[in-house]
């Protein structure tokens, strides 16, 4: 039993140190660098980025850092650096307020003139983070269905919320915390009449009153048909959309916008991202390359001339510049400065043969993941084993036992700490 207790405590020490020691090291030696910002400039017709540097800052970037922090670079796709002011001038549709202050409006691009109102009217940003996807975050399956015709300036929450049971759309009154039988019957019957097949696959909508108007929600039924459900004057208005069931809609990110061009973004089960248009729910597939919705965040930046799709994981950032018909004009990919292998990172990977990450990366759920950097980890294990052997030989004049050697050989510094702390040989 004593051996069992020793083994359990050893494993516990290894587990705890493999979680916390890397965190401690990261806090001391790593700089937390945010992701690079990448844009397509309608002025230079090329990509331009803003990036915080890891490691030494290039001389040319330093020269251009007169009006901002030296660690931040404004870099063009041809690897030349510009000042912050020049950077903003390259992106007049984003920094249009500065353009106005600097007297550069209206501006002329591609034979067209753009004043402040035109720019404002045609600007839009749509975003889909991996954590936004409904099956990648915790949520309570209980939603509000807003009144789309509130009869007043601002939207308000209704007195009820609904849940989807295997057979009904069940409304619960918030005042009484009881089922609203009449409303449940009305909506469930209307859904069934429209061809909705229970149970529901997903409920998609923007569940807030902080939006200009309400477009209702999109429900995906058991056969992957998509239904547009609205509450107008307290009554259901349900449309079965012509969205292809073979796409197996996974998630729809709805974002109401006064432009009324697109309801939002629709993600299929194969990871294809589409714009969901107001034109009879027509889908516009985005020609994204190497896009993985489960580990990447994507932004669509619309301006009067172009649409730029920018998406990134933890190391790479990619962008596609498209015209307003979503034909690719230019592509760009860039390894972000935050991914640079610094000396601190090399030491980290050598010192810690593996790390246990207990975090919520790209998801709203906590999970444990073991990560290891092969060649550095191997070097670290050999060094650790060497130190362990030398220490034991010097101290006890005899080689260490087999299981201790095996433990240090497989767990490196963690096993070394556990063995030295627990000091099992001294036990009777």
């Amino acid at each position, binding site marked *: *039993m*004593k051996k*069992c*207790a*020793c083994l*359990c*405590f050893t*494993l*516990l*020490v290894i*587990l*705890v140190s493999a*979680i*916390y020691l890397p965190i401690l090291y990261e806090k001391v030696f790593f700089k937390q660098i945010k992701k690079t910002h990448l844009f397509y400039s309608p002025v230079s017709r090329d990509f331009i980025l803003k990036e915080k540097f890891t490691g030494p800052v290039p001389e040319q970037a330093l020269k251009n850092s007169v009006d901002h922090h030296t660690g931040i670079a404004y870099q063009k796709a041809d690897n030349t650096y510009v000042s912050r002011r020049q950077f903003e001038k390259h992106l007049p549709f984003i920094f249009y307020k500065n353009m106005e202050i600097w007297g550069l409006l209206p501006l002329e691009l591609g034979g067209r003139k753009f004043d402040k109102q035109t720019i404002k009217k045609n600007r839009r940003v749509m975003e889909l983070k991996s954590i936004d996807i409904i099956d990648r*975050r*915790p*949520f*309570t*399956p*209980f939603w*509000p269905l807003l009144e789309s015709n509130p009869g007043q300036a601002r939207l308000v*929450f*209704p*007195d*009820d*919320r609904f*849940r989807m049971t295997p057979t009904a759309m069940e409304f*619960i009154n*918030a*005042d009484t*915390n009881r089922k609203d039988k009449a409303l449940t019957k009305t909506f469930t019957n209307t859904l069934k009449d429209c061809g909705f097949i229970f149970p529901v696959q997903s409920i998609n909508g923007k*569940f807030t009153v902080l939006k200009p108007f309400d477009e209702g929600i999109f429900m995906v039924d058991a056969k992957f048909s998509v239904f547009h459900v609205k509450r107008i004057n307290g009554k259901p208005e349900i449309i079965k959309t012509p969205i292809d069931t073979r796409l197996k809609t996974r998630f729809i990110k709805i974002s109401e916008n006064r432009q009324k061009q697109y309801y939002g973004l629709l993600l299929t089960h194969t990871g294809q991202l589409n714009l969901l248009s107001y034109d009879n729910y027509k889908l516009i597939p985005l020609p994204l390359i190497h896009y993985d919705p489960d580990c990447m965040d994507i932004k669509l930046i619309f301006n009067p001339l172009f649409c730029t799709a920018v998406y990134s994981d933890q190391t790479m950032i990619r962008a596609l510049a498209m015209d307003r018909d979503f034909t690719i004009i230019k592509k760009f990919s860039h390894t972000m400065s935050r991914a640079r292998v610094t000396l601190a990172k090399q030491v980290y990977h050598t010192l810690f043969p593996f790390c246990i990450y*207990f975090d*919520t990366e790209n998801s*709203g*759920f*906590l*999970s*444990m993941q073991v990560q290891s950097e092969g060649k550095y980890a191997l070097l670290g294990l050999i060094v650790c084993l060497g130190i362990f052997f030398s220490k034991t030989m010097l101290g006890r004049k005899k080689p260490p036992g087999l299981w201790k050697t095996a433990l240090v050989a497989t767990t490196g510094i963690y096993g070394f700490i556990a063995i030295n*702390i*627990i000091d099992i040989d*001294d*036990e*009777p």
Partner: protein
Amino acid sequence: MLKAIFFKEFFKIRWLWLIILLINLALTAYIFITTRSLFILDHPEVVWYRVLHLGQIHFEDLKYIPLVSGILIACFQYLPEMWGERLRLSLHLPISPHILILAHVLVGLTAFGTVALLDLTALWVITAQYFPKEAVMTSLVTALPWIMAGVAAYLGGTLALLEPNFRFKVFNMAVAAGVAGLFLRNQDPGGYGPALTGLILPLLLMVLSVLLPAYRFRYRRTV
């Protein structure tokens, strides 16, 4: 023999355990009052929105009480044993040391479990009173890691208090703090859900690890 140990432990901690139980009861009553006041101050649909959609935790005051309860139960149970070296006498009883220690741990965990059960039941009742059943499930999944932090605190307290060597005592405390910390991350409600099963492993390791300092205490007295 085991029955006698259970009785001894129960009689030792019963009054102090009752105080912990009452403190927990008072806290759940406080949570009931604050939850009720949320609904008095605002429209129910707005409170539902804040809690169910924005992730406001209406019972956040409960977060650290299981942790404190776990530590206190461990202290009440083992400090008298270590101060008076009474455990040395117990360890000479005609029973295996590991059975003896595990019996002690079982009593402590039962005491803590009763308190935790009270907290979870109260949370269930309070949430069900004001929110739909989906919220009850989310609340329980949110509070469960805090209860597990309490178990880690109790076992960690045992690990540290039974250890005779001061250096190891500090190390054991650090390990226990590390394990308890795993259960106290700031997460969206329900964020711990899929990880909860895996997180039972460090607690199981802790249960058997507490035998190690007891063996040290039994067979060797180090300063």
